């Protein structure tokens, strides 16, 4: 019962949980979490597409280095990637705000995973389609563009949505470098109030769950619809 009354701390800070210091200060909380996830998702879609296409290239000197890059990124914890970006970006580009550092790190990391989705999607189409296309005289890139990618991308949509869910969860690591997304905001409030960690972290977990579960369900629905469309 006392637990219930303690959720007052959530109500008191609800706006801060949702939008942080905005509009007086920068956007934070759930708003920033979604912003980070959406921007990184869009960027890593293209990053993944490019990396994926490079990694299925017929030329070894293209596919090899890209596979090396992909597997290196995948072999390292996201936390490490964030620290690296945190180090390297300022050295390369000078002043870079943390939220952009985090976006870069998430993009790099997620692109590597997305590229595997793209790769699997392309390979899932089977060699028959490529052979049929080039047999009619289409060039390799034309076959890719008109035949393989349209089918592949459609099949990849559910995996992309799943990857977006991972991204939402991964934005929580931005906390480490002091970007005030939802988890960071939660620890701030926890630090200030110092008496309701159970309530605060449970609440945060529920917020993440609502966001992620919505997209997980979407992905499942898409997957079913896709299977259904294939079976027409």
């Amino acid at each position, binding site marked *: 019962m006392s637990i219930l009354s303690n959720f007052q701390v959530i109500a*008191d*800070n609800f*706006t*801060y949980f949702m939008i*942080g*210091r905005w509009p*007086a*200060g920068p956007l934070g909380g759930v708003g920033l979490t979604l912003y980070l996830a959406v921007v990184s998702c869009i960027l890593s879609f293209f990053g993944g597409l490019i990396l994926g296409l490079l990694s299925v290239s017929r030329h070894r000197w293209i596919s090899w280095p890209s596979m090396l890059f992909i597997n290196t990124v995948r072999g390292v914890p996201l936390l490490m990637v964030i620290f690296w970006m*945190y*180090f390297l970006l*300022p050295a390369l580009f*000078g*002043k*870079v*705000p*943390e939220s952009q550092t985090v976006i870069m790190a998430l993009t790099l990391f997620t692109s590597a995973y997305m590229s595997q989705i793209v790769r699997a999607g392309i390979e899932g189409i089977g060699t028959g389609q490529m052979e049929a296309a080039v047999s009619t005289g289409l060039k390799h890139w034309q076959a890719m563009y008109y035949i393989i990618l349209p089918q592949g991308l459609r099949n990849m949509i559910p995996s992309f949505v799943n990857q977006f869910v991972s991204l939402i969860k991964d934005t929580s690591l931005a906390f480490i*470098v*002091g970007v*005030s997304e939802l988890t960071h905001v939660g*620890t*701030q*409030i*926890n*630090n*200030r*109030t*110092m*008496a309701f*960690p159970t309530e605060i972290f449970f609440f945060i977990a529920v917020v993440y769950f609502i966001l992620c579960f919505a997209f997980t369900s979407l992905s499942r629905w898409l997957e079913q619809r896709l299977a259904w469309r294939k079976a027409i």
Partner: protein
Amino acid sequence: APPADTLAAIKKSKVLVAGVKDSLPPFGYIDEKTRTIIGYDIDFINAIAAKLGAKVELKPVTSASRMPQLQEGNIDIIAATMTKNAERAKVIDFSHTYFFTGQKFITKKGTVKSLKDLEGKKIGTAKGSTSEQNVKKSIPTSTVLSFDDYPQAFLALQQGKVQAVTTDEAILAGILAKAPNKEQFEIPAVQISDEPYGLGMRKGDKNFVDFVNKTILEMEKSGEAKKIYDKWFGPNTQFHLQRNFKIVADK
């Protein structure tokens, strides 16, 4: 890369970016109603910015992240309970001391009388702080657990995961004052170091350092510095502290 002359750069951009703590009352924390960062450190930054005719942009930092942030040019100045010491002074420049305290412990009431009582115990503090380095030196037998910030360490103390939290007395007092069950804890009279706080600026950024020093000396003279102290620590607060230092030029 960061500007060579920060002072000139700020005068041009009219924005002063300061790295501050955001959950460490009363130095820097989020005000529940306005959702803005306020505190002792912030008031100093505001005064300096006013003098510059610049707007303030506050960036939350942690003990571990504040120096890299400064060096990379993400912030112009650190006002984040930062202790001046020789090692750090090799990497950045400090202003004159704008706050003075000493490192102590917060413990469950009656459990610690002297430093001896802490031997072999688990002690919580913050990552990358001088407190962490000091306590490792003065009680080598203890296990030091480092958190992202002091309130987290205090939470661990409340839950029995550590037996003491150590850092600067003023911070401990701030935490204790805000704690929901403060009557169970105390700050025993065990001090392991002096902690003079300085504002941090990039190494060799002479114009800016001089300007900041000049400003805070003026604040001392005009009584504004004392007013800020009293606002956050004085008799009308939960702390009832007397100011036992003055801002003076370092030798």
